[in-house]
């Protein structure tokens, strides 16, 4: 019989349960992570990451980029995929479940530790006009997606997740937003799929557009970085256009990276305020479960501000990012295990429509602005 948490709680550490209870689940996450990614300190060469890397080499690069990178294989995706397969093929034993609940500890832990990853000074080199432009495009994309999503009558958790991920251009954001927006696993993964599908299609079509518009390498790099975002797909587009554009895409990617928290925090606060403004509207579900501003978001924001002052220097930053990889590998394993395939498909095709619609609007706006800047000799890039 499930004893309510409040009854068994003795201190805040009670959420960790007992070792005996969590060990099987923890081990399951641990081994999935270990066989998914090449994690710091793990010498295991038999990982999904290595398998994909070998397949990359067998298939050969696409636009000089590894195919599985274009398909977004990364430290979140790999364990998630493995968890999904294990969960759907073998099911999830009951004994694992207490341990798997640690995902709720790992998520805020990972999100906060991501803070040192977003450092504004890394983007400064691109120049203020471009940074402001990128910021404006990000907010614009978020707003358009939120409005369109509402117009399409979608679940607000679903469309706001898409808005966050699409505007920041990073599929990882769906995982970051999950505990913030209180979205469901299926919605998160559906959003992830939509973003990836859009990025994949866009990354092959964008070079055609670039050539048709006769864009220069730098402008096209900006278009692919802010029009697609997802790193592997951005590089696929940019290198598909030209080597030079590819190199500039690497250069400008730091701007997108530095602005990313602003993007997902924007979406969160919009949804959070909306939930406060319409407390009785049953259709408003995103962030509804938060009674007040969650503490971990406050801590994340503080950490994000503090790291801007280079309190944490480079090797420490890398070490913390290695911990983030561990953390999200474990969490993604638990998330993968939790999802029956039916739940992902349940969200339907509306997510895809939304993503493509706002993604295309963004590309159009970006391209128009870049061409205008080139025409009027405005020093945007």
């Amino acid at each position, binding site marked *: 019989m499930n004893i309510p948490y409040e009854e068994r709680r003795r201190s805040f550490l009670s959420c960790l349960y007992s070792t005996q209870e969590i060990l099987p689940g923890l081990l399951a996450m641990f081994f999935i992570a270990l066989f998914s990614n*090449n994690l710091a300190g793990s*010498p295991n*060469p*038999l990982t999904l*990451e*290595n*398998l*994909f*890397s*070998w397949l*990359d*080499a*067998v298939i*050969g*690069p696409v636009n*000089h*980029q590894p195919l599985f990178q274009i398909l977004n294989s990364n430290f979140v995706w790999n364990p998630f995929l493995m968890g999904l397969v294990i969960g759907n093929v073998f099911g999830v034993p009951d004994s694992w479940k207490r341990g798997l609940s640690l995902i709720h500890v790992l998520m805020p832990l990972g999100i906060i530790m991501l803070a040192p990853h977003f*450092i504004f*000074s*890394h983007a*400064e*080199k691109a120049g203020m006009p471009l940074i402001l432009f990128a910021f404006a495009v990000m907010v614009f994309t978020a707003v358009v997606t939120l409005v369109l999503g509402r117009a399409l009558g979608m679940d607000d958790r679903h469309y706001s997740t898409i808005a966050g991920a699409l505007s920041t251009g990073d599929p990882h954001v769906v995982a970051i937003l999950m505990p913030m927006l209180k979205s469901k696993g299926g919605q998160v993964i559906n959003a992830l799929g939509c973003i990836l599908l859009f990025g994949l299609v866009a990354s092959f079509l964008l070079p055609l557009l670039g050539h048709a518009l006769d864009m220069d390498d730098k402008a096209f790099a900006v278009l692919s970085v802010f029009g697609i975002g997802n790193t592997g797909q951005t*590089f696929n587009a940019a*290198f598909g256009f030209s*080597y*030079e554009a*590819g*190199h500039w*895409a*690497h*250069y400008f990617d*730091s701007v997108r990276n530095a602005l990313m928290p602003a993007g997902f925090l924007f979406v969160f606060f919009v949804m959070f305020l909306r939930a406060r403004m319409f407390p009785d509207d049953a259709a408003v579900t995103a962030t509804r479960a938060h009674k007040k501003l969650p503490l971990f978001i406050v801590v994340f924001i503080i950490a994000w501000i503090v790291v801007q002052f*280079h309190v944490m*220097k*480079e*090797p420490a930053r*890398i070490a913390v990012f290695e911990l983030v990889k561990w953390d999200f590998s474990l969490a993604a394993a638990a998330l993968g295990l939790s999802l029956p395939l039916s739940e992902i498909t349940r969200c339907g095709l509306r997510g895809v429509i939304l993503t493509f619609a706002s993604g295309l609007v963004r590309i159009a706006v970006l391209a128009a602005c870049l061409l205008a800047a080139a025409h009027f000799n405005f020093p945007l890039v």
Partner: protein
Amino acid sequence: MNKLLASGAAAALLCLLFSGAPAAESPHGLAPAGDMPFIPDLGGLRHKAFKNQYGQQRELSEAVLVRKSSVKNGKATVPAGGLCYISETQEDAAPFRRDPFLLLGEHAYLVDSKTSVRSVRDVSLKKGEKVLVDNAGYRLWFDYATDHYDLPYIQMALIAPSGHWPMEFSVSSKFPAIKDLPDRSHMEGDVEQLDEFFLDPVFEYGASRFEVKDHDFQKATFSSLSYPVIDEATFSLSRPVVLDLRQEEYRLYGTKRIYAFRESSGFRVSVTNLGGDKILAEKLLRPISSQGYKDAENEKDAYSLTVPGEDMRVEIAVQPEWLRHSDFMPWSDAVPHDWSDGMLSLVVYRDLVTVKNGEPWPLDPRYTVGLEASLLTGKLQRLTLENAEPFTLDDKNDSYDGPVKYSDVWNRPAFRLVADDIEGDKVKSYYVRDAFFQRTDNLSFTDRGRRDIDCFIGRAPTFVSILEDSFLTRLATPKFGTEVEGSHFTSFPSVMPNMAFHSPDPTAPFGGLMRGFGREQVTNRRGERLTSSEGLVIRGSYVDWKNNRIVIPPAGLFYTSRNARNVRALNGETFYMLGRRAYIATFESTTFTRRNFDIDFWRVQPDASLHPIYWQDQPLGVNNKVLRFTEKHLLDDRPMAQINVVKYSGNNFGAPFELAQGLSREQGDRYYLHDRFAEGATWIEPEFVGEDYVRVKSFGTPAIKSVEYTYEKPVRALLAPGEEKALGKNHTLRLVSFDEAAGTATVEIRRNDGSLAKTRTLGPLNAKTRAFLPQHQRVVNSLQFAFDEGKNKVLAEMDVKTPFEKGKAAFYTYTDLKKLEGDTPFEGDPRFMVRPDVCGHCYQLNEVLLDNPEPIILDREHPRFDGPRMADGKPQFSIVIDSFDGEMIHAWHIETNYRKRVFKSANLAFQPRNNVGVLMGVNGTIEGFLRASLMERSAWQEYWRTGAHPHSERGLDAWLAHKFQ
């Protein structure tokens, strides 16, 4: 800039086209296309360090090379020998050491080899040629010729069929030989210029010997070339089985018994069948220990027993105690050259494969085996497999299998060359696939396609020698923009007190040619064309993250100006001085000598920075040069030392000193090296060459103290006795008399008011003194008349080419002379110190360096540093930091002032950097740094092309890294 590059590329291409012989010629020893793609990593071609039985590290690597291919009418053609697999060890492999060697991706051991020395007589060739000297494909290359006292000496290399050569050697039949070096052990300190220049007609290099008979500047004849060759090599493809030896008893090995009976000089080893009643093989074996001579042809038979008809070779090894239960690699801790404590073991090698030089590969007759020996040690260094017959690739048949490899699972082609898109005379898509089905990127990097399918895949060191003709163009031609390698950020930046004698770290971006750093062809009075060029090097800089600043340590920034060879007086030669052409007038040199000192062997002491620590350097004077003992070998247990003279810039002197004592070919030694060394005016005579240090009895090398130059072009004046000519604003030069027969001329310098300032007789310029031109400063000074009254220093010199003409004497006059004096502040900008560098052979100016004596600090408040000021007061270049956050440099560039315009370099921190190291411009100094880091730079260039991060062990590589060792 592009024009210059284009002309450079065209020249390189022309050289490539015309240096070799007709198209049908064998590709052996020749370079692939200069712009061929290089892919550093393909999983199936391995690159890894293993250790042998003695714990000595062996760097092994494999590569696939395609050269001399062509694409025409939809067909790609590769000539016989054009597709070449190379397996290489940076050191060498010999029997009885369990030396590892890669055989098409498989880890094998060399267990036996048959070596001999090939001698070729009477080889003649012209400058620039690479002529075949034997059927195997060895080539002799006449790289270039230069002179001492107008007598030629020539720079050669013997190129192995693969294209590898260890070093260029200089020989000459025109100078005193090394054996004529007199005892100079009494000399100490600065002595005046010595008369003799030495150069030996014989280059002795361990197992090799090259003797020149006669030569001039354009052609040479060698009376003999001898070099080691390997006729046969046997490899074992499995770990050996090791059994503790028990005397008078047998050990079971599969279905055999191995008996060992003790005798006075070893063990009589007997291999029998299982029952012990039938002896399959029997021999008296001596235990193997670490003495090097045991692998000599006449010795080695006593140490192994091969069982006829069986895949089995037995040796008795003395295994150190700690190796007893490990039949494989010892730990990686240091193992002494010999050990005292050992167990006797029977070592049985199996899975033996014997390959013969020039014969088909056992698994695949389409490929011919090549075995190449180290020219120094005569031991196996390289195994090549080449296609025996030419082949073509086209639409119908778009791939060609590499040689079939031995495998535990499935013998299959080790790689496959595929050209799957050929349109007319261009190939649009081709790649190499390895034995694990992994492929490279499309080797035709752009849509334009290529006219050949040449390529180099893998990290075999042969890459560096094979690209000698084209590497500079490769690195300097920014096909994909200026490549910047991102830094590895650590908590401990390498804090350098002074960067003199250190080279810049290999990650420093190379900007290539840039307007503002001159590079041009100049012609001297004798009509010799020389390249003159200048550049900038920043070395040893670091981000001091605790103080939010960038530091360039003393001597960390230097301006360099250098010509293709030394700059000579009396010839009207010019060099660049801060963007302007300067004419050298005169120079002052000495011979720096030292005696009775020790040089310790230099060991790399890792301190987590990219700058090694050179504690063991022996300084040669102050800020002049240092001696560094960089390499050592045991040649049949006799130590051989390689000592380098390192210049102030961090580059090595062209000719390292290879020294070993007590070797003699007459007494039957396999090796010979001179026991002393002399080249030009530099010599070294060791008292004792040890394994770990060398005691030097006497050493000397030229050192330059100062040079004088002017920006005004020297003017020729033809004067009859009594005639005069203005010499600057304040003086006139007047010829008093001359004696054509004696070669003398008496001149006087008068002030404008008519008063006599000074009189001098120049000369004599006769056959005797000409024999010391142009290098000897005593003779140079006797032909020059310098005069200084504090305002405007002037100089008149005899025209050495045509001193007397139509009853008149000819002079060149120099006005407004400026002085560059070593270790003093630069006159035009005292923030910089002058460090002139001498030609190590010949006392003349080789390079002008200007560097910072104080650290340069850059931070947010001071993001700009101006380099030395030119004559017009503007800095020649400036360092500009555009984006620096106290930790990482995100953007910085170099600006130059050229013809009233400002030119900017690309962002030299395109990927974040933790230093402002850079190489800008192209001259000999920068070329030296580039050559030393060619492999890494080329690899980074490739990562840069595709935006990949430096290869980490991922995918199958990670798996292989764990599987083996």
